[in-house]
């Protein structure tokens, strides 16, 4: 079981308190009516799914209830950073921030 630090509660809590929420920073187009079918399809379905460092959404569902983001290595399960929803992905200096 992973330990995840909720950036709102500022506490490391067991994974069972959290829900996974898919890739982070996939913003819903502000005016969906103005985007092309291809752009909308990309928003709906295209995800990076990397083997390695991944920014993803979690929700502290059995805690404060807040959605937040985490940078996790999908190979080692190491959680490199967690940060509040709406903040940009932190640069961990490993070259993965702009990989997508």
């Amino acid at each position, binding site marked *: 079981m992973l330990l995840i630090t909720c950036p709102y509660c500022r506490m490391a809590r067991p994974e069972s308190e959290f829900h996974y929420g898919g890739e982070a920073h996939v913003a*819903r187009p502000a005016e969906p009516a103005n*985007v092309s079918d291809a752009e909308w*399809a990309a928003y709906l379905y295209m995800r990076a799914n990397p083997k390695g460092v991944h920014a993803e959404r979690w929700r502290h569902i059995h805690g404060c*209830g807040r*959605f937040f983001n985490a940078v996790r290595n999908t190979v*080692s399960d*190491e959680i490199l950073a967690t940060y509040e929803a709406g903040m940009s992905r932190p640069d961990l200096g490993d070259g993965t921030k702009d990989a997508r």
Partner: protein
Amino acid sequence: MASLHRTNGGGRVDRARTLSFTFDGRTYQGHPGDTLASALLANGVHLVGRSYKYHRPRGILSAGAEEPNALVTIDRGDGRAAPNLRATQVELYDGLVAESQNRWPSLSYDVGAVNSLFSPLLAAGFYYKTFMGPRLLDSNWAWHKIYEPLIRRAAGLGKAPTLPDPDRYANRFAHCDVLVVGAGPAGLAAALAATEAGARVILCDEQAELGGALLSEWAVEIDGTPAASWVADAVRALAASPRVTLLPRTQAFGYFAQNFVALAERLTDHLASSDPAAARERLWQVRAKEVVLATGAIERPIVFPGNDRPGIMLADAARTYVNRYGVRPGSRTVVLAACDSGYAAALDLHRAGIDVATIVDPRPNGNRTLIEAARTAGIAIEVGATVIATRGRQRVTAVRIARIGADGSAAAGSWIPCDHVAMAGGWTPSVHLFSQSRGKLAWSDAAQAFLPAAAAPGQAQRSAGACRGVFGLAAALEDGFAAGKAAADTRVRKRSFNVTHDLTDFSGIVGTPGTGAHVSKAFVDFQHDVTVRDLKLAAQEGFRAIEHVKRYTTTGMATDQGKTSNLNALAIVADHLGKPIPEVGLTTFRQPYTPVSFGTIAGTSRGDLFDPVRRTPCDGWAQAAGAVFEDVGAWKRARYFPEGGEDMHAAVARECRTVRGAAGMFDASTLGKIEVVGPDAAVFLDRLYINSFQKLGVGRCRYGVLLNEAGFIIDDGVIGRLAPDRFHVTTTTGGAARVLNMMEDYAQTEFPDLKVWLTSTTEQWAVIAVQGPRARDVLAPLLEEVDLGATSFPHMSVKAVRICGIEARLFRVSFTGEMGFEINVPADYGVAVWEAVWREVQKHGGCAYGTETMHVLRAEKGFIIVGQETDGTVTPDDVGLGWAIGKSKRDFVGMRSLSRPDMVRGGRKQLVGLLTADPKLVLEEGAQVTAELHPPAGTPALGHVTSAYWSAALGRSIALALVADGRARIGTRLNVPMPGSDVPVEVVAPVFLDPKGERLHG
């Protein structure tokens, strides 16, 4: 009476007390401190099991967790039968009942031993060839008559108990600064160092006594103190610290991410009797800041022909039986020593009065000091020799030694009579937990072993002592102390240890020393009966990677996970392929280290606690009324209320007629309920649902449909506006949590600018639906000053009222097509109000109805159920709900997807009604709908039946279906192919009753 097989004194068993136990029905005696294995040896019992494939007689190989042969079933009665326990780990208690496994009819006369005669047929790849090979026989017959019984019998040595496990199991989460796994010399030293630093320490060890290998020493002194006393002092010092938790009988079996380690603690299995309320085992889930692995090493067998006969055991195990348990495992021993521990065993066996016939050492140059000591003791030594054959049916009677030539060939020599062989092949570090932690291993030529190299990220752990190749007692103690210090506080003063009688060479040999062509019946994996021949065959057949060889031969795949065999197997395959060992690779170490009972893992999650049941406030009333229940998600819902011996069909038909004729009441409390509050509540709901809510008046309701962003229906429900900034949202029973999570997601991440707050109120309200033409008459007497008239409180209204004096929310809504109300009262008043309504319902000839009637009544009206008429690929238009989409809306969740090309093309499946030509015939839900009457195989279906019921109101069957271009097919005939008879159907509009809604608005 002193046993012939006990030493004259010494050891850690309590000779003053005697315990009785039975093995295969025969009664024997042992002492407290014995394991089942030591007690059997003390009674001269060596034959303890039959091997897996060939049913060869097998004896006790080891004295620990690595035991591949001595597997027994311990039956404590009443379902407390534990199979495949290692006799070497089972603590003896008075009255213990043990049975051997994999033999019939008895251990000494086993019919299955005939398998030995067919051993060429059972060689490597037998299972694969069985499944994949040419089908000479009718495969079905062969499978059921030959292969399956054979494989089933062979698949597990012990039999799983058939009765439910009556024992209790406990579970504990724990946190500590330093978790030390293993309480041998390195582990004890590590715990002492960490404790000195003031750390919170957990020290666990799988044995009943802490001390590990030190418990088998009699001569060793540490800093001038005898080993046993040193252990006692160390344990006493640790136990005295309130910051230390000592866990004997506790196996660390799994190492997971972020220093999360699972331990299984045995609490009562060693007791003759225990309080039935006491837990049998406890699962510890430990999160440690630092982990010190002091898991030691396992001695390897030597691979030579006939190395599996009872009486042949590991040298260090023999030494442990003599020194720790006071047991003589034989009367005349041949020691095959490829490293120091063989000599140490020979000397201690000799000291215990066992005739050590000879030491056979395959190495050209052994440890001179030890050789000298053995010679001084009068023990003959054959250097540069090995064993190439053994004799003896149920116990070894002789071994044949051979001198190894310069070219590696062996020249057969004389037979030496003996009843015991001790083999010391070298030591394999126990890197299982390190490997489970995803640490990287590297091959060490010096140690002839894989050793921990790099720790995985996030795993703050270090190995100490023999498990990282640091052998020798003084070195292991110092390494352990240094690891504990590093894990806790580097300011702790470094410590060195003064040890007498230390050993130095542990590397030994891997593979098959000097046996050349003599490989017949040379066992590598004892538990799975894998021989050198099998491994060579796999290599000859083209297997190159050890992972493939493992699966093909099943070497290392038994319950012992190859603890004694993996490295030898690897060396033999590498040798055959002419490659260095690291190039052949290493198999994966998996949890659990030793088998763990299901009870320990399940803990309290069993029976009623496995999947908690949700019950509504009115559940007790429904039970008393004789309702038949169904499971809906975690809820128990009343399905129907049979009267006077009615079956479901009769009860549902009566309930349907009563609701449409008079009135019925229904427990709708399971509906999900979410209170959406805030100045932007209406805007928020507008963005989530397809409907418009901004213009919805206070006191009015709307049927809301929720899509996902892909444009497909995922939930629906009535939404009432209680105030300009307050909505009462209902969801489907199963969708409540999902919808709230989705709302929170949008509120927090996509629309954080909106001022809106969401609260789950599902369990705050009991919901009582009253439906039918007399519904108003039922409710009127219970309400204070409320006009329920069609104009003052029309369909789709909501109002705060007092019912039976209790504040309530009253909805005028209908899921039946009849005039209907839903009363929401605080859950605690649910039963009281239900009973009051029930009294009124009865006055009007009404009834209580269940979910089955609810389904029929809504289907007669063509109301969809999300998850029945929809399956995650259905749009609002597909089910005729296009009208619900707010006309002037620019955006809502899923709106953009509704104009994607696939959504607007023709041929989408649409909701229609189906009427069977035979009105008595009720279609099967899920049945396919086709154009042709007898479609040829492979014809794609036009769609499928989503709902089908007997309609009492119509006196015939009805069905709803999703059919390609369904609305255009209304009035045409289609077919529902069924086994035996295809059913012609007429396509109709999906509303069977009161299409104008006159009853609804009455």
